[in-house]
């Protein structure tokens, strides 16, 4: 159960979110053709596009939720869930794919699931695939928190993440 103060601050947050979305909509003239620009602005603001935020955007612009979801699921760029505190992007370009990127991704996904099951925080590590990042020579390439690494195995990546997490909590 939430306390009064928690509910109060939640309501404040919702109100602030509404105000901010309204500003973004005004900035882009309320035009359906500007939906993508508004979505970019919304994602920059909130880190991702939650259902609640999409709902406010729909209400403010008169664009249907169906259309908003068609757009945000079509473009890889838009996130529907909160970003994790760490991101792991596995490149699925042709070279990386041939060098086993899919297997790497599957194994990583499995390991992360196990970690979560063992008490790790959900969404702590954001695992996703990306199109070619131009590092074919390092295939399979993986970007961990915007640092690019090549030819790693799942164990290496998990070790690396663990060190980063320790460093962060240590400081």
């Amino acid at each position, binding site marked *: 159960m939430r306390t009064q103060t928690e509910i109060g601050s939640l309501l404040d947050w919702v109100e602030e979110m509404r105000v901010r979305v309204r500003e973004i909509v005004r900035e882009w003239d309320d035009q359906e053709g500007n939906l993508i620009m508004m979505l970019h602005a919304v994602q920059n603001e909130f880190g991702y596009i939650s*259902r609640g935020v999409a*709902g406010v955007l729909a209400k403010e612009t008169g664009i*249907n*939720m*169906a*259309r908003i*979801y*068609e757009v945000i*699921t*079509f473009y890889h760029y838009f996130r529907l869930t909160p970003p994790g505190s760490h991101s792991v992007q596995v490149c699925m370009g042709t070279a990386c794919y041939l060098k086993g990127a899919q297997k790497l991704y599957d194994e990583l996904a499995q390991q992360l699931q196990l970690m979560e099951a063992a008490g790790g925080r959900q969404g702590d590590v954001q695992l996703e695939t990306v199109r070619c990042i131009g590092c074919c020579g390092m295939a399979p390439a993986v970007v961990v928190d915007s640092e690019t690494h090549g030819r790693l195995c799942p164990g290496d990546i998990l070790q690396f993440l663990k060190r980063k997490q320790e460093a962060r909590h240590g400081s």
Partner: protein
Amino acid sequence: MIQEAAMIRAKINGTPIEVPEGTSILDAARKAGVRIPTLCKHPDLLPTAACGLCIVKVAGQERMPRACATMLQPDMEIITHDGELTRIRRTILELILSTHPNACLTCGRNGNCELQTLLGEFGVRDDRLEKYLRDVPPDHSNGSIIIDFAKCITCGRCVRTCQEIQNVWALSMLNRSINTRMAPAGDILLADSPCIKCGQCAAHCPTGAIVEHDETATVWEALRDPEKYCSVQIAPSVRVALGEEFGYPPGTNLTRQIYATLRRLGFHAVFDTNFSADLTIMEEACEFVQRFVHGKGPLPLITSCCPAWTDYMEKNHQDFIENFSTAKSPQQMLGVVAKTYYSEKMGLDPAKHFQVSIMPCTAKKYELERTDEMFASGHQDVDVTLTTRELARMIKQSGLVFREMPEEDADSPLGEYSGSGTLFGATGGVMEAALRTAHYLVTGRNLAPDAVNILPVRGLEGVREAEIDIEGTAVRVAVSHGMANVGKVLDKVRAARERGEDPPYHFIEVMACPGGCIGGGGQPYGISDEVRRRRMAGLYADDQGCARRFSHENPAIQRIYKEFLGEPLGEKAERLLHTRYHPRKSYLR
């Protein structure tokens, strides 16, 4: 004057053809007696070139254009069918099959699926390609229609029907490329979406991905229960469409054959929704006169017998709730008088009276429990709604040879109807029927025989406006069908409201489905404007052939008011025959 399109000449498979400019190769070929296969193009929708089956060869061109989205040009020489095209089309079908479960035997579209038919015609005999199936469970959240995502071939017909024809936006196409999938707006349950249950998605789906919620088993169960007294009603538009399931052309009026069949299925009493359509008209025309002549209540009066429309209005046009006719739909009126008046007359226990309605409509299933007022008899007034398609299935299960059924009458008194009652099934019909009776209520005289047919409200144009003269006073009316059309009509009323002017219309009829109920989401498959016109013609002929053309002249209607209901809009009529509307949320999530 409408300028006629210029004609162009071309050749299809060597045969010279002349068609108006702007005709697609697909349509031109059809005129030349050639059917080009397609799974995404529907006559109601603009082409999207999604499936790729309709590719053709054009002399002098390397690429093979899609016939649905390519307009015939002068002097084009088209090849629509040859060995190579057949091979390519078979490969496309195999690709579609690779993402489709082989579940035909237990599918709701078994026997009338467009994909199944084409696979059969092209002789596809094995799964040559590796299967890539969607592992998404079906959505049973909505009591009217069921979505089985695994069977979706992403042709996009349902999505465009929902968004463009109906302006409902309950369905969307998510993701891209091989992961593209249809889902209720933003991946929620259909029941939590803005869905109005009209079923137009199901009527346009080429496969079994969207089907009506089949309740035939519940009805069979009731029919074999010796404790139950089962009665049934058939809606106006069912009589001119059911025959299509048994090889009759669209529009064949089979009313009396259907009565006989229903009796042989085991129903104890066979009623006609046309009777209660007359009853709805009595209440609604009185409401109109109250508002129009006596100024009691806001104008325009808006019809409310279409449950998909009332759901849409409660979600999207809440500023018009006061304008709605409170008269219940014919389905609900028949249910309540069957369980009160008829049960009393026959000495039946209403608790054991089981009332089934045969409707062209999936939203009617939702209407059964829409509000507490749908239980005005003290029981659920109508127990089960079956669509026309479900009734056809029941008849086939029963072994009855429909084409050999005799003609019989419905049971008195809830089976007698006037020509006005039967009009309800076509867009403009409720308006026409109500105006006939309103004219009588205001002037004390019927419309002259040459004015009974109110032609300006008939037709298939999305919005039709007319002015009808009632003793020197012009009644301004509008008729709208296809849910996307209603916005324009209501915006006109809103604009007048803002300017403080008289409303542009006094009376508005709205039906969710294009064509009205004859084009309902529960009708036999294969809808097009041509089919709509023929079904409508069947109803207009039924009206024309009726000895009585006015609801207020139906003797059974006069009797029920005298013996049971009292006056239209009286205390008892209000309690049993009226309902209220409430704002609802479009999204429950």
